[in-house]
């Protein structure tokens, strides 16, 4: 028994399932063995587990034991997300060099797949791309490796083109933009860049310091405000929603064209923080029923397959109208976007127009990409250019 205790502690027994572990005889008098708090944690596990079990037995919609779990709604999001389980990213220089003066053979396909994988394409998306590529290669009777590369380029552009969009900030005044994303993705910096771009279009801008959590987040946004010579609304001690609400009101009274609201970085798994985001959105709508007119998720191009979870979670919580892909000036190529595009391909192919209200099921396009740390380092997203960079073509 003592032996198993040590085992459990090291999790050498795997703990593939707590039930499995605890069924083994040696765990029997668990309560006596574990310190109280650990015991309690285990009780949680069991309670949680038990609530599933009861749910699956009852098969009725009466609440499970703890009432913690809604029965799975038979919405389509599961199957939609199953398709989301793909990924694409960074098709590095390897691809370029692979394809010089070569004939198409099986090894080439395999190398291509490896290159796609090494570029964060994700297993499923790589396989899908390769399947299509093989298909076309045989249908078009391609022979040269170079032709295959052109074909792959085309495939990728086809996948990404629906994400291309042109930004307009008309339709409302103030036009309210809200940014969200995981920690350190580049939200605050992007706001500095967007403010610059909007001013260059002759529009006036106001910033709202909605990150009331991170150390010096306000000061950071204030610095961007100074650089752009635009005012920044911030209130030490106030909560995010009210700061942004005040900013919208103030912008309205001052006839400002665009308000950009910063929010604190948060991991999409932190449900209370996701709730806070929803609240922010609701409160903004009190200032203007159509606001926020744009809700953009900031994604770091360095992110691997987790970007898909981020996209799904933030989209579910907020109903995104756009994406910003940052840090594309690094070695990460951000091919994860292809997976996000694929995930959305099931939705009606409707070019999302950003201005004014937003249609349900519209594709969430990439409104900007970030290519550096200065004010000017913001670009529109161009699928063809993006794929060229991805495949390392000039």
């Amino acid at each position: 028994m003592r032996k198993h205790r040590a085992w459990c502690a090291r999790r050498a027994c795997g703990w593939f399932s707590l039930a499995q572990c605890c069924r083994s005889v040696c765990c029997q008098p668990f309560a006596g063995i574990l310190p109280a708090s650990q015991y309690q944690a285990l009780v949680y596990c069991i309670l949680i587990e038990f609530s599933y079990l009861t749910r699956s037995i009852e098969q009725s919609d009466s609440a499970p034991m703890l009432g913690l779990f809604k029965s799975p709604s038979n919405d389509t999001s599961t199957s939609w997300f199953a398709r989301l389980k793909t990924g694409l990213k960074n098709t590095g220089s390897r691809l370029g060099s692979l394809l010089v003066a070569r004939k198409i053979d099986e090894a080439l396909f395999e190398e291509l797949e490896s290159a796609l994988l090494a570029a964060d394409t994700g297993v499923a998306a790589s396989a899908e791309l390769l399947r299509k590529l093989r298909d076309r290669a045989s249908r078009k009777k391609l022979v040269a490796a170079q032709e295959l590369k052109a074909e792959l380029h085309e495939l990728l552009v086809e996948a990404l083109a629906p994400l291309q969009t042109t930004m307009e900030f008309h339709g409302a005044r103030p036009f309210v933009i809200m940014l969200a994303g995981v920690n350190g993705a580049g939200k605050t910096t992007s706001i500095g860049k967007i403010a610059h771009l909007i001013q260059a279009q002759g529009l006036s801008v106001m910033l709202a310091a909605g990150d009331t959590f991170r150390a010096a987040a306000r000061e950071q946004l204030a610095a961007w405000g100074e650089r752009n010579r635009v005012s920044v609304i911030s209130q030490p001690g106030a909560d995010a929603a009210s700061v942004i609400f005040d900013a919208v009101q103030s912008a309205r009274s001052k006839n400002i064209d665009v308000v950009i609201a910063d929010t604190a970085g948060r991991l999409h798994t932190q449900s209370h923080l996701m709730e806070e985001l929803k609240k922010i959105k609701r409160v903004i709508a009190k200032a203007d029923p159509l606001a926020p007119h744009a809700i953009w998720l900031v994604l770091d191009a360095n992110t691997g397959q987790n970007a898909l979870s981020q996209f799904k979670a933030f989209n579910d919580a907020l109903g995104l109208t756009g994406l910003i892909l940052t840090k594309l000036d690094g070695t990460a190529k951000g091919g994860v976007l292809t997976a996000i595009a694929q995930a959305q391909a099931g939705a009606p192919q409707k070019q999302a127009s950003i201005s004014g209200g937003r249609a349900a099921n519209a594709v969430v396009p990439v409104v900007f990409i970030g290519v550096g740390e200065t004010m000017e380092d913001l670009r529109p997203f161009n699928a063809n250019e993006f794929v060229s960079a991805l495949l390392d073509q000039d």
Partner: protein
Amino acid sequence: MLESLTQRLSKVVKTLRGEARLTESNIQDALREVRVALLEADVALPVVRDFIARVKELAVGEEVLGSLNPGQALVGVVHRELTVLMGGGEAALDLAVVPPAVILMAGLQGSGKTTSSGKIARRLVADQGKKVLLVSCDVYRPAAIEQLRLVAEQAGADFFPSAPEQKPLDIARAALEFARTHYHQVLIVDTAGRLAIDAAMMEEIRQLHAALNPAETLFVVDAMQGQDAVNVARVFSEALPLTGVVLTKLDGDSRGGAALSVRQVTGQPIKFVGVSEKLDGLETFHPDRMSARILGMGDVLSLVEEARKAVDVDEAKKLADKFKKGKGFDLEDFKQQILQMKKMGGVSALMDKLPAQMAQAAQGAQVDEGQLRRTEGIINSMTMHERAKPEVLKASRKRRIAAGAGVSVQEVNRLLNQFEQMQKMMKMMQKGGMAKMMRSMKGMLPRAF
């Protein structure tokens, strides 16, 4: 959610069962699943290749031993080897030099250098009573210095002011001199985020390293990073003699395959993991847990540890005593459980840490934190007496409670029913221990487990 290796292998294991020995071809099948799982966890492709080759070799070795279940043997090899690859043991900071011991932080933009600097400082100050000085050489990012100043304050460490007009190298030298003359035991130097391909910035940090001669040079990497981690880590480790890695943002749902890539490329141990934005969110790295996480085995141990921290130990003891003595588990206790659960980040946070099979069982189920809040509200509307003796709750009291909590009487009834069920479970647990409870649960369930 991505399919976990546990899920994947369970398929493979099925196909392996009934075969006395592992053959080249059915190892191949299983290994393909391992490969896919690792790639989906963001482990870099070259690292995956090495790993597969290694496991293959070892698995064939197991065959000679003729283990009971070939599938189990393979899972065992995979987990064990991954753990070995992740570092084999825990690694602490090595600050045994003539003070001040310098810790230099390096990494990509937004990876968590500044926050981790504060976390490490806090740990050294609070746990070891060290005199720590923090300095920022980030003269580029707006308010980066101010951020570190605030973080230093929270950490209870001293702060050496710097300004954007200064040169990073000058700042570093001045801070080192200050630390020397003021008898600081540790100097933590935060630096600006930089891209591996930014030659000028990489040269800058090389010079900082030369000037500071750090005892620890820590590479800070985001657990969500993808395949590029392998390239970035290579460039940083070529530019700097790294001594360790800090893996941040592990509190999310990323599988953290970057950990493996970075560990492999730098050859340096992961010394800390970041598990929250707050300064107490720093933990020692456990290779076995990390490998379980990458494989999707859940992280029950972390859960237990977190529970230990978040839970009021006295409260928990009282509760455990109640169980043991067989004294009733009442609604007040239930409320306490809910509160404790909240402290640990809510149900969804716990869910993330459950092992694969449980998480699988939960798939599609939505966590309803609102329900939890309502439950709490209902209990709050009861008197202490009612909480201890729910049987006194008759129609009029129920109506009062429902009104107080802003719910319907049915909801109050439902809670009471659930609670009764739970009490039965608790009783079962007292009598026969968990094993019995689990067995009875198993009996209630047709297939799973």
